[in-house]
């Protein structure tokens, strides 16, 4: 590239400054992915609160309202939403603990950050699967 740069036009109106990474072509490193995932799961859980409120209001309202709620949660879409909620929940909780440890001043170096990142990913998968195995055992 150093050879070609000489033949490219320079001068007023031609912006030759290096560009910052564009998100569309820049592959986020794992630690950046962990960071934005924390925010995305947090925002998803905000939306998931609607389900929680629906559950409680339906239970307080009566049998008809509760049947409607149970019908939705037990439907394929409802179960998919619930599965997404559970994965987002465990990720946000476990990665939240990771953030709290950083806030307490521990594990801030790069190697620890990577180790804890892998730990959070594995634990999220484990807790999500465990939750559903337990839930299905209780259900049936």
């Amino acid at each position, binding site marked *: 590239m150093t050879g070609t740069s000489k033949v490219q036009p320079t001068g007023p109106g031609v912006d030759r400054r290096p560009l910052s990474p564009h998100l569309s072509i820049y592959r986020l490193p794992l630690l950046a992915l962990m960071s934005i995932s924390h925010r995305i799961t*947090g925002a998803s859980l905000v939306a998931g609160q609607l389900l929680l409120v629906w559950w*409680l209001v339906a239970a307080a309202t009566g049998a008809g309202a509760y049947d409607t709620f149970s019908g939705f949660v037990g439907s394929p879409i409802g179960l998919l939403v619930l599965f997404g909620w559970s994965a987002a929940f465990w990720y946000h909780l476990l990665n939240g603990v990771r953030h709290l440890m950083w806030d307490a001043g521990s594990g801030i170096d790069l190697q620890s950050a990577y180790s804890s990142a892998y730990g959070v990913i594995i634990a999220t998968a484990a807790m999500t699967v465990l939750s559903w195995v337990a839930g299905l055992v*209780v259900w049936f």
Partner: protein
Amino acid sequence: MTVDNARTLRTPLARVRGLGSAHHGAGAWWTMRLTSLALVPLGAWFVVSVISLAGAPLSEVRAWLGSPIQATLLLLTLAVTFHHSHHGVQEIVEDYIHVKGVKMAVLIASGFVHVLLAALSLFSVLKIAFGG
């Protein structure tokens, strides 16, 4: 009120426009950490409870919601969750929305919705707990 301009780097114009720190940052930061810490055990307890109620009929759910210990823990979980959620949404909005009017509108709407949802869910638990 007179302000000693020699003691601040802010211009009188910036001060008049209300820009700069509102000095609530440390409090907001601490609130987020404190609610996070509380939600680790409360959240885990909530998920385990919901799993134990999987497929349960309404009568069983109401009996669970009506027991003093479960109702108290759930009320605490709800209060802390909505508080945490409100602050979380505020952080996201402040990071991504920079048009002042839009930002204010979204923050106000988020606050109203959070209080509404909190009131609905807290009242529902209390209604069941008090035998309604």
